[in-house]
């Protein structure tokens, strides 16, 4: 049932993007999310598009797989587009049918905003598709390290993050299992009136909650039994290494930023 979900999932491969340092990937994603708002005309969106598809190509993630996984999200993009097209009332009138009026600005805004949305989703999924959750947390922990000065619990947060990421597949598996058990007991998750379908979630959620709490407790006990005591003085098994390609990638993004600033209207 959840087989096609690709959000938060890692696809192992040997590509340039896979080999990059998680720190540089995180920095790039963060900057990308910021600079995408610089784009406001055709040229700048094309630039962003080229960059996104270039990264996609370098990552060697099969396009067909990406498409299947992002299909549900594409509906959201389409929805955004329609919302803009129908409800923006600026610019010259393009089309009129009864109460429906479509304005030029609406179409323009709709296309731009849904493009922006689409590129954002692509780039952020690219991060999780090419980086293992552990790498992401390691990267984040190192990047946020300076915040320790202001007493921000960086290590604890990274630990929490890696634990929750680690248990996503487990939770998915369990959801699938319990879903099947309840389907075998006559629950319909995917058909029938909407009221019944909402009700059908209860026999799924309660067992999931119960087992999650149980698992959390077991994990806490197991960690304590092995003498875990937070991040002070803790060494790392995996060491991050910053390579030339990471610097180059960041440079490319900086160039993109400059181009965006030059070409935006």
């Amino acid at each position, binding site marked *: 049932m959840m087989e096609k979900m690709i959000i938060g999932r890692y696809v192992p491969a040997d590509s340039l993007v896979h080999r990059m340092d998680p720190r540089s990937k995180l920095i790039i994603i963060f900057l990308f999310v910021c600079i995408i708002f610089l784009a406001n005309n055709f040229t700048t969106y094309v630039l962003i598009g080229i960059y996104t598809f270039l990264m996609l190509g370098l990552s060697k993630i099969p396009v067909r797989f990406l498409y*299947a996984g992002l299909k549900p999200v594409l509906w959201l993009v389409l929805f955004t587009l329609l919302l803009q097209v129908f409800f923006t009332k600026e610019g010259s009138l393009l089309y009129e049918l009864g109460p429906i009026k479509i304005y030029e600005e609406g179409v323009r805004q709709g296309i731009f905003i849904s493009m922006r949305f689409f590129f954002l989703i692509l780039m952020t999924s690219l991060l999780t598709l090419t980086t293992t959750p552990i790498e992401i947390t390691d990267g984040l922990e190192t990047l946020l390290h300076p915040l320790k000065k202001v007493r921000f619990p960086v290590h604890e947060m990274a630990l929490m993050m890696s634990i929750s990421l680690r248990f996503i597949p487990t939770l998915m598996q369990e959801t699938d299992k319990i879903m099947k058990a309840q389907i075998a007991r*006559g629950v319909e998750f995917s058909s029938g009136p909407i009221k019944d379908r909402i009700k059908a979630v209860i026999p799924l959620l309660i067992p999931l909650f119960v087992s999650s709490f149980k698992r959390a407790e077991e994990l806490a006990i197991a960690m304590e039994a092995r003498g875990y005591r937070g991040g002070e003085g803790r060494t790392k098994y995996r060491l991050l290494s910053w390579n030339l390609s990471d610097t180059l990638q960041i440079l490319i993004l900086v160039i993109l930023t400059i181009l965006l600033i030059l070409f935006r209207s």
Partner: protein
Amino acid sequence: MDISLQNIEYRYQANTPFERLAIKDVSIDIPNGTYMALIGHTGSGKSTVLQHLNALLLPTEGTVFIGSHEIKAKQKNKNLRQIRQRVGIVFQFPEHQLFEESVEKDIIFGPMNFGVSEADAKVRARLALKQVGLSEEILEKSPFDLSGGQMRRVAIAGVLAMEPDCLVLDEPTAGLDPRGRKEIMDMFYTLHKDRNLSTILVTHSMEDAARYADQIVIMQQGQVVKQGTPVEIFSSVPELVDMGLDVPEVVRFQRKLEEKLGLRLEKTYLSIEELSTAVAELLRGAPV
């Protein structure tokens, strides 16, 4: 109700980089009233086969016949609910599926989903509870206040109360103590005998397979490698050992004995009682 799998194949996550062939060209016939044991290592495809028995998984290739229903690969299939009502599945660790606030509500959940009236369902709940060996006192309790063994029994009662024609059991006794294990296995056997209930048991335990099943199917790497009655299956010990499977203790004892005495008993015995009678007879007749 007869069930038949014909040349079925199942791929998990077809058309993704994670695609994995789970079972291939599996054909199994389960005539009405059979007790069949499905044996194999972890990852041999047992659970995948099992989920085809009530249309939780639909084959990517081949056909599944369940009673009068026919489920073909790559076709829209309707009325899966009717199938699910007739084939009850007890999953591994079934206590994980409990969710209601009282034991009674949880047991009647299944029957009521299939359109049984509340009054009838409650009658069934009492009966099912008795079958699994629990007293009616716990009907009002929360299932989460029960012990692990009791929870398991309540969950099984929830499946029994649906009154299926066929019962599919996925290692129903995993994690129980030996006594609880035997009680539950005996309970399923009694049900099978009394109601002529087709039973399919997925198990690691050769002892259970030898003791209860009429038919044994052995799976390896997603394919059926051997199929036959327990006597047939356990007659060729070396073959089983080659597949890395256990041999029931009784059979092992018989083989050792035969080796020591340098003779061969006329057949393979699967229970201690039968074997001891045979050995006693042999000793009585044998020259001292």
